[in-house]
């Protein structure tokens, strides 16, 4: 936030900025400009006027006209690109597009692979629900004989729900592989863990 044109009457001395009346450290200059202290030159009016007004503002004895200062700061000098630079830029852009397309392709393949694996480990009924609604249900039985019904929705986090027989959500759980695996793999991991290690699942998951 420093403009060398001298329009605002600030200058730097040894890491501090000085306006005409106050020695300001770097950390509080913004605050000073934007909060009115009732000083003679209304510091809090400077920024809004720079950014949008067609009026003028006065800070100390310097007049700022319209939003010239801001425009000067953000307007780049005309950019002259040689043919060689343009060609280099084109190649860089093309390479970036290719890499993005490859990442997208790998992601689609990974999603398809994960979905196949998930479906291989669902019952026919779970498969049907998953295809129709993007979720499936499973029941667990604790050692003391308590039966619980869970719904695993498509997704990675906050997608496991304890539900009653009417599908009312009683509790949400958030637990997922630390690696960014495809969603279908996450759902399979959640299913396997709930069925084979429910106490561990409940210990690790964040519940809400």
């Amino acid at each position, binding site marked *: 936030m420093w403009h060398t044109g001298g329009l605002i009457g600030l200058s730097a001395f040894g890491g501090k900025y000085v306006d005409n009346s106050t020695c300001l450290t770097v950390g509080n200059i913004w605050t000073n400009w934007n909060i009115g202290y009732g000083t003679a030159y209304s510091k809090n009016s400077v920024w809004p006027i720079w950014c949008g007004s067609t009026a003028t503002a006065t800070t100390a004895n310097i007049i700022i006209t319209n939003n010239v200062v801001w425009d000067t700061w953000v307007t780049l000098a005309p950019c002259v690109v040689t043919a060689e630079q343009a060609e280099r830029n084109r190649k860089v852009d093309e390479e970036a597009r290719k890499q993005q397309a490859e990442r997208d392709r790998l992601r689609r393949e990974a999603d398809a*692979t994960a979905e196949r*694996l998930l479906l291989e480990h669902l019952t026919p009924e779970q498969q049907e629900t998953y295809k129709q609604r993007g979720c499936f249900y499973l029941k667990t039985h604790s050692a003391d004989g308590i039966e619980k019904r869970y719904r695993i929705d498509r997704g990675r986090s906050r997608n496991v729900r304890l539900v009653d027989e009417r599908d009312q959500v009683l509790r949400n759980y958030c637990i997922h592989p630390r*690696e960014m*695996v495809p969603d279908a*793999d996450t759902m399979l991991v959640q299913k396997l863990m709930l069925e084979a*290690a429910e106490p561990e699942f409940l210990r690790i*998951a964040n519940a809400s």
Partner: protein
Amino acid sequence: METTKETIKHVMSVIGINGDSKFMWDPENETEVAAARAQFDALKKKGYLAYKVEGEKGKKGELLREFDPTSGRIIMAPAVAGG
């Protein structure tokens, strides 16, 4: 299990960011079993949980503490965290 050239291949699916990768072994082949066991142990050290998933589709898996070469299918699931 998958049958290839009259030998029964057992499969370990390792879940990762690109989907799962498969590791196969013939339970009658000591070298393959040793390689599969080494893979299993290395993943367990990284925090993976192993599930034995056999039988009818969707049947509940069983947590495996140690490599069992007779398991027809094992899924190695990466370590989980609460979100």
